[in-house]
């Protein structure tokens, strides 16, 4: 790895420098488009006291849920708890600090973190628990609350294809939070299914420019499906 080449060859190298009590932002929605091997690496490292920022926390035995079960997570910033019983249990038992954040606000907070916007106003959450303690302001007769950006010590991302410069392309709804997450880490680590030659990706079709990416690794993925719904003839 030198110059613009972001490729690393071990998951250990990919997550080197991750320490207890750091903040990690993760891409993925449910189990779709999650950096599953980077999560596994955090699990094996046994890093503790983590703040995890992610829309969901996986399911109990897969995805970010494995960090929850192993008590590696001190605080979750997420929009959705459902479908993970252990998450709900730890939350209700006050064993886990949770900042429930509306999904769109969460996406925007992460984007803002990467884009040098420390805070922004939104109407989402006005009049709810989410608005408590936040600055309120009226624009055009409507009330808005001020939400602050999120920056992570690490950002972990799953993309479909990449070149060594870290130019990324996502596939279908596995894109979800990944493009914003990629911008919001002090160290951004990306795992992909396929490495292509520099120059092979059409510049007009790159979703995340390599400037945001610090480390890149090629993995194999289980891609577990949460709700396998099919048409019955």
């Amino acid at each position, binding site marked *: 790895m030198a110059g613009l080449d972001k490729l690393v060859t071990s998951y250990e190298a990919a997550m080197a420098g991750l320490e207890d009590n750091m903040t990690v932002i993760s891409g993925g*929605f*449910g*189990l*779709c*488009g999650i950096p599953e091997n980077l999560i596994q690496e955090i699990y094996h490292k046994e890093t503790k006291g983590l703040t995890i920022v992610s*829309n969901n926390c996986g399911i109990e035995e897969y995805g970010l849920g494995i960090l929850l079960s192993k008590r590696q997570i001190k605080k979750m910033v*997420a*929009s*959705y*708890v*459902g*479908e993970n019983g252990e998450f*709900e249990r730890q*939350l*209700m038992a006050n064993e886990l600090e949770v900042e*429930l954040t*509306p*999904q*769109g*606000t969460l*996406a*925007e907070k*992460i*984007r803002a973190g990467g884009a040098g916007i420390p805070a922004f106003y*939104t*109407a*989402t*959450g*006005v*009049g*709810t*628990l*989410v608005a408590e303690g936040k600055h309120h302001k009226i624009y055009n007769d409507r009330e808005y609350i001020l939400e602050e950006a999120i920056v992570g010590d690490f950002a972990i991302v799953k993309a*479909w294809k990449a070149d060594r410069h870290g130019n990324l392309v996502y*596939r*279908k*709804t*596995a*894109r*979800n*939070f*990944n*493009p*914003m997450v990629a911008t919001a880490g002090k160290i951004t680590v990306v795992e992909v299914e396929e490495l292509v030659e520099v120059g092979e990706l059409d510049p007009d079709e790159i*979703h995340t420019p390599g400037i945001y990416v610090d480390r890149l690794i090629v993995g194999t993925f289980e*891609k*577990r*499906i*949460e*709700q*396998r*719904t*099919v*048409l019955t003839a």
Partner: protein
Amino acid sequence: MALSRNQLAQRVAQELNDGDYVNLGIGIPTLVPNFIPDGIEVMLQSENGLLGMGVFPTEENVDADLINAGKQTVTMVKGASLFSSAESFAMIRGGHVDLTVLGAFEVDVNGNIASYMIPGKLIKGMGGAMDLVAGADNIIVTMTHASKYGDSKLLTNCSLPLTGKGCIKKVLTDLAFIEIKNGKFHLLERAPGVSVEEIIKLTEGELVINGDVPEMQF
């Protein structure tokens, strides 16, 4: 008789306008596409980053990378587009979605909605619901009129933590189609065979009845 889940979806579908971009929440709303009237073309938005959601895939076409906001495997229609969650909520927050249909635990006469937690009992999280109710002008809440214990879900004041404040104008329950304005519920239609009295009995918040209340047409 109380509407079936399919009838609820069918009645919602009558509210669609040609060319609408529509976000359908989890549960009953996901059945709406089965009842889109002829000659009406709509695009379904799924807040995890898909505009142009199609039906469930066949077994061979299941794709782990293509799910909806309920984490169900889906397909795309012609003309679909894919984007990030930030872009998806830019659409929603920015008011570009024409109609949002979602479920709730409670709704009250001031258009407040509660749908994401029951303190001490259940915490699902708000997911995208807070953004959806804040972003859309046109929202239809679908839910049962009362709990299985007979407790009304149409209240003077929501008792649960709110998902949104003063944002709901239309509620479709298994018994009635109701409009919210001026701090009151207004009974627009009743389910076939359901009496106005029955609806009054199960509506805790103030309910205005203006003349004869028509039955829903299917």
